[in-house]
Every structure is written in structure tokens, then in C-alpha cells.
């Protein structure tokens, strides 16, 4: 896990429009295997849109997304999953009427992982073993988030996008999931974390990109970012014009 190695993903001058609104307006960044990159920024700055474009839910309107040297902008989600990208959702999206076990079985069967991880181990590691045979609808929000994560891991991603995985977790759960995320990165997975909890971000990330109005305005350590006037203005609602 050396952040100097060639990036697994690089995004350059990415543009995503919704009508006349530029959700992403020339966003560029990169992330390497084993690195945990934080995407931070105020609401509406384009964090989730970036995740949605990278994971293939939206086709970009401009710019490039390059995964391991190949352009992937506009490639269908399920193909990106087979190429090693997966994600969780801000509002968890399990298959509600299927059991927890079946939720993961779909990903194991269709995720395209050459050596799929063992179902029982995954459920165990993410504290879902006891509810394995219950419908996903019976799970609480935190458990559904873990199920989203397990479903993603079942496809053996090399790039994992975590969209507000920690929101709503209690302090003990936060510490626990932070360690899990670090362990995943140590196994070589590149991880992009979108999060509002700054303490959590500072604890787990190697580097952050600060977004505002669809552009990056800072790239580096969070501890440094909080001293940059432009970043402070964006978060505190200064006079800065995007």
C-alpha cells in the first residue's frame, strides 16, 4: 500500500449536468490501491454525484474516468462491478423481501469475483450472522448499511466507494467500522469515503479532496484543509463565490 504507486482510479475534468445545474464541474482527482481517500464538502457539492458517476449510475457529460488505464465513463454498473468497482448507498438499498443470506448470495453468484469470499465469514465479520435468515426488511439501519457493505465485498472490489457509511452509527460502532475500513485498505482495496463526520474522516483517511460546487478546492491532509481560508469559507458560508 504505497500511495505513490500508479493510481487505480483517476478522474479528470469530470462534468455532470442536471439540466442547467452543474453537479460536477471539472472535478479531477485520483486514488491508489490501499489508500483511503475522503471526499468532503458541503451539501450539494457533488460528492454523491461523483460516486454515482464512478459507479456507473450516471454517464458523465464530460471529462474522463479511468480505471487501471481504461476509460470507464458511461460503462454500465454491472460491468464496472465485474471490473472491480463497488459501493454502498447513503440510504441503504438491500433487497428487502429477500433474506440477508440471499442478499449476499446474489452478489456472490453474479458479482464476477474469481474467488468469491465465504458467505459465512462475511456475515460473521460484519455482525450479520445472527440475522442471516431474516428478511433484510427486518434489519435496523446500521445493519442494512453493513449488508450493503457485505454485498459490495462479496464481489471482491478493488475500488470501494462508501457513501456515508458511518452516518447514524453509535460511537462504539464508529470505532469498530473505522477499524474494518482500515483493514480493508490494508488488504489493498482503494477506498473512497464520503462522510460528514470530520472526526471519523480524520481518523481513517490518508488524504481528502474538498469539493465545492462540483470542483475540488483542496487535495491533501484534512488537518491542513481545516486551516485553508477557502475551505473554511465554503463550510462556514463565507462570501466565496464558487
Amino acid at each position: 500500500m504505497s500511495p505513490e504507486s500508479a493510481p487505480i482510479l483517476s478522474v479528470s475534468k469530470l462534468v455532470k449536468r442536471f439540466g442547467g445545474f452543474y453537479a460536477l464541474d471539472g472535478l479531477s482527482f485520483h486514488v491508489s490501491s490501499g489508500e483511503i481517500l475522503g471526499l468532503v464538502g458541503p451539501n450539494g457539492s457533488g460528492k454523491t454525484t461523483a460516486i454515482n458517476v464512478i459507479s456507473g449510475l450516471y454517464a458523465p457529460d464530460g471529462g474522463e474516468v479511468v480505471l487501471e488505464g481504461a476509460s470507464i465513463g458511461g460503462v454500465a454498473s454491472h460491468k464496472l462491478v465485474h471490473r472491480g468497482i463497488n459501493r454502498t448507498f447513503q440510504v441503504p438499498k438491500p433487497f428487502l423481501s429477500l433474506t440477508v443470506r440471499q442478499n449476499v448470495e446474489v452478489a456472490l453468484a453474479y458479482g464476477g469475483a474469481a474467488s468469491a469470499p465465504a458467505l459465512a465469514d462475511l456475515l460473521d465479520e460484519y455482525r450479520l450472522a445472527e440475522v442471516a435468515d431474516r428478511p433484510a426488511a427486518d434489519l435496523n439501519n446500521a445493519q442494512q448499511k453493513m449488508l450493503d457493505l457485505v454485498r459490495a465485498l462479496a464481489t471482491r472490489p478493488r475500488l470501494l466507494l462508501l457513501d456515508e457509511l458511518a452516518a447514524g452509527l453509535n460511537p462504539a460502532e464508529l470505532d469498530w467500522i473505522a477499524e474494518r475500513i482500515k483493514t480493508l485498505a490494508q488488504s489493498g482495496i482503494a477506498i473512497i469515503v464520503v462522510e460528514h463526520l470530520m472526526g471519523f474522516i480524520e481518523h481513517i483517511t490518508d488524504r481528502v479532496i474538498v469539493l465545492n460546487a462540483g470542483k475540488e478546492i483542496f487535495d491533501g491532509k484534512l488537518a491542513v484543509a481545516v486551516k485553508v481560508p477557502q475551505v473554511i469559507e465554503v463550510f462556514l458560508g463565507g462570501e466565496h463565490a464558487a
Partner: protein
Amino acid sequence: MPNALKHTLFIALPVLVIFAVLPGVYQNHLLLFNFVIFLILAQGVNIIYGFTGYLPFGYVGFFGAGAYGFAVVVMHLHAPGVPAVLAAGVAGVVVGLLLTPLLRLSGAYFAIANLAASLAVLHLIANPALESITRGPYGVSLSATFNPTSAYAAGLVVLALTLGAVVYLKNSRFGLALQAVREDAVSASMAGVNVVRMRVIAWLVSALVAGLAGGVYAWYVSVFYPDNVFSGDFSIFAIVFALFGGVASITGPIVGVIILYGIYNLIGFTTPQYFQLIYGLLIMGLVLFLPAGLVSLATRRGWHVP
């Protein structure tokens, strides 16, 4: 014993054996035949609605296309019954292929568009300008293939294939992936499932089933008009029967057809004057109190219903 074998031996096979034996002991063969047709159609609705969530309000479009597919090859190519039923299946699939763009819609929009599409197929076939091909609105008479016994047997074969398809869906990774698509298409794609392909396959299998049923129906009745085989009652009944029993299961639609179509005929024979009233109240009650179908009575108690 694997579940698929269990479901075949203890659900599909008994249904087929019962309907193979009944004509020997019960005189109203038309009624038995209608049961077979509705068992096929309810399972066809189950395949598309139960496993993918698309409610096919125009399901009869495939059925009518199948009936006319059968009629056209019998009238113009003098085909015997069995190849004509296969042609009916092809007709259903062709209509299904033409309508695949509808799968871009969801919920009520899909249901309405599908209903409109079935009417379009009806009016195309019933168009007097096509009299030389379909006999237009004047109906067809297929005396060359008239053979209710063979047609009934063909109906059982189609029912067997349909039940086999549903047993497969209920017990395969493919069926599980379809249910995942039904639950959440975005999440299904993040599980690596090719959502569009899954939906199209289920749609075409469902269309094939209805097309074959239409062919068998045409073979059995041999004289019919466009309005008969494109009657909206086929769609509504098949949907109501499937929902009443419970979709995404093998037994639900079977139970739904046996009970509801049974009651339908019972009321029709005994108190025809109150028929509409009783049947309407019954369906309203079901929608209000058992929206997830009869099988939900058992699943709510934690029992597994195949």
C-alpha cells in the same frame, strides 16, 4: 432431496396428474380445459410480476397473438395442431420482443402502456383490411385441426413447461437475481446483475407461456373472434388469481386459480343473478385484507411456502 426435485414431485406433478385424470371422471371438459388455461396464464403472470414486479395489464395481448398465430398457420399453411401451437409461442415472443421498450417504464405507467399495447395488437388483427390474412373482425373457424382431446393434452404439456419454469425460478440463482432486480434494480446492478437482460428474459418467457396458451386455446375452441381471444378478462383473471394465491411462489397461483376460478364457476352455476356482486366483494375483501395473497397467511407465521 434438492428443493427443485421436491417442488416438482410434490407440487407440479400432482397438479398435472389430477388434470390428466379428471377428464375421465368429470364430464365438463371445457371447464377443466379453462382451469388448465388459467393455471398457465396465472403462472405466466407470476413469472413477470412475481419475479420482476412488472404488472402486465395487457397480458392477453400475448395470448391473443398466440391464438391468431395458431389460426394463421393452420389456415394458410395447413399446419397440424402441434406445430401450430409452436407457431403460437413464436407469435407471443415476437409481440414480446416488439414491446420490450415498455420495460423502460415502471409501475402504473408500464401497466397502462401494456394494456394499450394489447389493444393495439387486437385492432391490428381485427382490422378488416387484413381479412385475407387474419379474417379481420369476422373470426376464424379451424375445422381442419378440431380435436379437443389433443388440444387438452397440449394444454397439459404447456402447463408442465410453465410449472417447470416457475420451479426453476424459485430454486435457481437466476430466479434469485430476478427477485433482486424486482426489489431494487440499482442494487441488483451493484451485485453484478445485468438488469436489462434479466428483465427481457423474464418478459419473453412470460410472453412465450401466454402465446403457447393462446395457441392451445385456439386449437381447443377452433371457432373464435378477435374479441374472444383478446378479452381483457383473461388479463384480469390471470392477475387476480395469481395475486390472490400469492406471487413469487409456485403454489400461490395454483391455489389462487383452484379457489377463485372454482368459486367463480360455483356462483355462476348456482346464483348467476348475484354473480358479479359476490365476485366483486370477494376480490375487494382480498385486496383489503390479504394484499400479499393467501400464501402470506402462512409466511406471516414463519412457515416457508414454496
